[in-house]
């Protein structure tokens, strides 16, 4: 059986959970086994995960799961997997997954792939999973050699297909240890899709010339419903918060559309963004290296081009 940890986003099952469950379904189909989902807590709408391919949803409800503690969550997932006889366990490669995936693999002494970006395949007789390495400069085909396998999935990696149907929801009892950590503050900005999940991203570089000019970026992002990002020099100069920094030593992203304005396209920046499906580069320097990695290019002054593009988007959206 493939068991997927369906993670809610701000109290509801959204894109992260839908993509994970659908990935698990596709993995189960490759192996010819069942796909079950695991829910930790009483998030409403668990039966609707059936629409993305989960036949059964197992719920573990406990006060110990209300605040996040990686060690407690790891026990919950590991023990559920053992009880249910799961051979493949799937997690998100996000801040939750990065705290759990390694723990789970160690606890189960399971081979693991963190940050997979494609559905596993049987290749040369081995269960093989592809993941980006060297910050997106290459992909590795990783064979998992153990009976139990752990995979964490990078966001925006697969096309989510609704299969229809409702899942059977059952409760599962697991003995959980006491948490050693205490969450004293949990603060999430609402209304904006976080960068790793964003499908549309508008990003500015040194060419924007200072934080006081950032309206040209945020106006376009607003018109598109996109998330804003920036290059490393911009974050290092404190023009924008460091969590907006995309690139090799910042956030790696894979949106459908990445619009980069005033960014020359150093190799360290490209490494974090070159898995974007479509790249638009706006730069006044026709020799900017970023144009070689772009699908569409506009050679011009971003202070003229961006407002024009914002107007065109507004007109298109009507």
């Amino acid at each position, binding site marked *: 059986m493939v068991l997927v940890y369906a993670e809610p986003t701000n109290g509801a099952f959204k894109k992260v959970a839908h993509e994970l469950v659908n990935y698990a379904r596709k993995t189960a189909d490759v192996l010819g086994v069942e796909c079950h989902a695991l829910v930790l807590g009483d998030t409403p709408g668990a039966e609707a995960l059936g629409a993305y391919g989960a036949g059964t949803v197992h719920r573990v409800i406990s006060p110990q799961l209300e605040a996040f503690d990686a060690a407690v969550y790891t026990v919950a997932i590991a023990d559920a997997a053992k009880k249910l006889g799961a051979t493949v366990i799937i997690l998100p490669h996000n801040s939750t997954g990065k705290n759990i995936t390694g723990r789970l693999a160690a606890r189960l002494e399971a081979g693991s792939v963190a940050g997979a970006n494609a559905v596993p395949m049987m290749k040369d007789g081995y269960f093989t999973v592809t993941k980006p390495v060297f910050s997106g400069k290459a992909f590795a085909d990783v*064979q998992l050699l153990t009976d139990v396998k752990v995979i964490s999935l990078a966001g925006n990696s697969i096309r989510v297909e609704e299969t229809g149907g409702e899942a059977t929801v059952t409760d599962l009892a697991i003995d959980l240890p006491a948490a050693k950590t205490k969450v004293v503050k949990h603060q999430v*900005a609402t209304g904006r899709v976080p960068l790793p999940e964003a499908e549309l991203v508008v990003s500015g570089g040194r060419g924007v010339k200072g934080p006081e000019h950032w309206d040209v970026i945020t106006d376009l992002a607003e018109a598109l419903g996109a998330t804003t990002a920036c290059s490393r020099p911009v974050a290092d100069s404190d023009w924008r918060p460091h969590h907006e920094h995309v690139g090799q030593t910042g956030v790696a992203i894979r949106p459908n559309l990445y619009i980069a304005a005033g960014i020359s396209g150093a190799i360290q920046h490209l490494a974090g963004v070159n898995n974007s499906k479509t790249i638009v580069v706006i730069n006044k320097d026709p020799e900017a290296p970023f144009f070689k990695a772009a699908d569409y290019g506009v050679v011009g002054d971003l202070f003229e081009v961006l407002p024009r593009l914002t107007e065109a988007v507004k007109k298109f959206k009507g």
Partner: protein
Amino acid sequence: MKLLVCVSKTPETTTKIQLTADGKNIDTTGVQYIMNPYDEWYALVRALELKESAGGTVTILNVGPADNDSIIRKGLAIGADDAVRIDVTDEKDSLFTARQIAEYARGKDYDIIFFGKETISYNASEVGAMVAEFLDLPYIGDAIALEMEGGSATVTRDIEGGEEVIEVATPIALSAAKGLAEQRIPNMRGIMMAKRKPLEVVAAVDYPDTTRIAGYTKPEEKGSVKLIDPENMDELVRLLHEEAKVI
């Protein structure tokens, strides 16, 4: 405080990754190596700051071949007291590496074991969490702030679209992200002193491979860029809608 900082060797950030002709390996000809930036810039420096304010020792740990000693020496030049290299010739997977670190650290009473949030080579963010599980320690990934008061740590971690503040008693393991500290450049005195600091080489423990890399591929090259008239952004919107189908 007794602090352990685990560091990796990665290709320098401007490296163009090339594959061997059969695609089974990375072509390492001419590749320059550095200490993984998250390990050096944030994990090591925050550990040094804690030592400077509260006293204690900072030990660097690397799992790898003798070639890695130059990277370890750089960590000593930045200010670590001593170093340990667990001697492994071949490149191994995360679980093997974590097992080595856990077996070394077990029973040595480190207050905090530091990692970088990920290596810029394999980008897995796994080893720290694995070590924590092997040693039954709390682990906090992507830490952007760390304050100590006695045996109690307050750690702020990055989460999607925000942050979370966690209180936890040491011993702990954590991974360092941008914001935890500011990069330090070693000075000449540090470089000279580093040559005399102890670097212990320890034999690895046996552990089976749980994964194997069968081969590599490179991302598909983009076709040539389609240039759009800067006066005509309606055309760009049309192409994004009709051709690229992304809006």
